[in-house]
């Protein structure tokens, strides 16, 4: 599975972390796409859509050669993953697994007592600049392989 980008978006739809794994020429594009996905996520999670209480939101959109997947946590953190479409079938169970790991990484990170709150900012509103977190996310993305 070719993961191009992993983005964490905060409570107020503010980007808190964008990891680009695709090469510098795509940086801006992926930032843009992860912002666009905010709208789609909002739509899917709005109160009008009854019956779905799943955190995993599945496939959000496709653009040219890429596919966007997303999930939202109970704490209103959105995680967006951009995949490069190859001739593989993306299985929901794989994606769920991936999002679970990405969310765990985030939970581990915010459990660090030295992360924020000194300026009174609530969790999920400040940009993450941790090298370790970046490495963790990269490892998860690179090591994630689809089950046959």
């Amino acid at each position, binding site marked *: 599975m070719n993961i191009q980008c992993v983005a964490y978006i905060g*409570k107020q739809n503010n980007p808190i972390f964008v990891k680009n794994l695709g090469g510098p020429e795509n940086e801006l594009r992926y930032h843009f796409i992860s912002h666009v996905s905010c709208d789609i996520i909002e739509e899917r*999670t709005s109160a009008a859509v009854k019956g779905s*209480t*799943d*955190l995993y939101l599945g496939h959000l959109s496709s653009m040219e050669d890429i596919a966007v997947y997303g999930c*939202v*946590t*109970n*704490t*209103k*953190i959105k995680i967006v993953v951009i995949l490069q479409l190859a001739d593989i079938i993306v299985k929901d169970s794989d994606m769920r697994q991936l999002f*679970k790991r990405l*969310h*765990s990484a*985030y*939970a581990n990170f*915010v*459990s660090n*007592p030295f992360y924020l*709150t000194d300026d009174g900012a*609530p*969790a*999920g509103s400040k940009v993450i600049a941790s090298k370790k977190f970046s490495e963790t996310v990269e490892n998860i993305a690179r090591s994630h392989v689809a089950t046959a």
Partner: protein
Amino acid sequence: MENEQHREAAYLKLEMMGYRVGQALVERLTRDRPRFGDTLDVVKYVCKDLWTAAFRKQIDNLKTNHKGVYVLTDNNFRWLLRMSTEGGPGDASRKAYPFLAFPCGLVRGALANLGISAAVGAEVALIPQCTFHVKITKS
């Protein structure tokens, strides 16, 4: 007077610590849980799952006026269970009060991270029973 100020400062500090822990805790605990419906859902979650995770029991009684005020009663709050003083139960209840700063913060932090801003206060009626008052400021 100065003593009173110190006490206040200590209470606030403990409350902030609880707030931080509450935030981090729900981030992890709600990972595999379906999305919440409304405010009552979230408060119920705090009473059941969060309380079990933090204090190994559930809240005994939850009351609400359906206008944003929730009263959580724990008849055997774990942290107060083994407390007693020479001055009798009344004295113990009064002295136990500062120990509730952290749990108050815990509840407030948990609710805040789940999208509900609230003011949380506590009261010790008769040790080890205590009540937490949750007042939703706006949602």
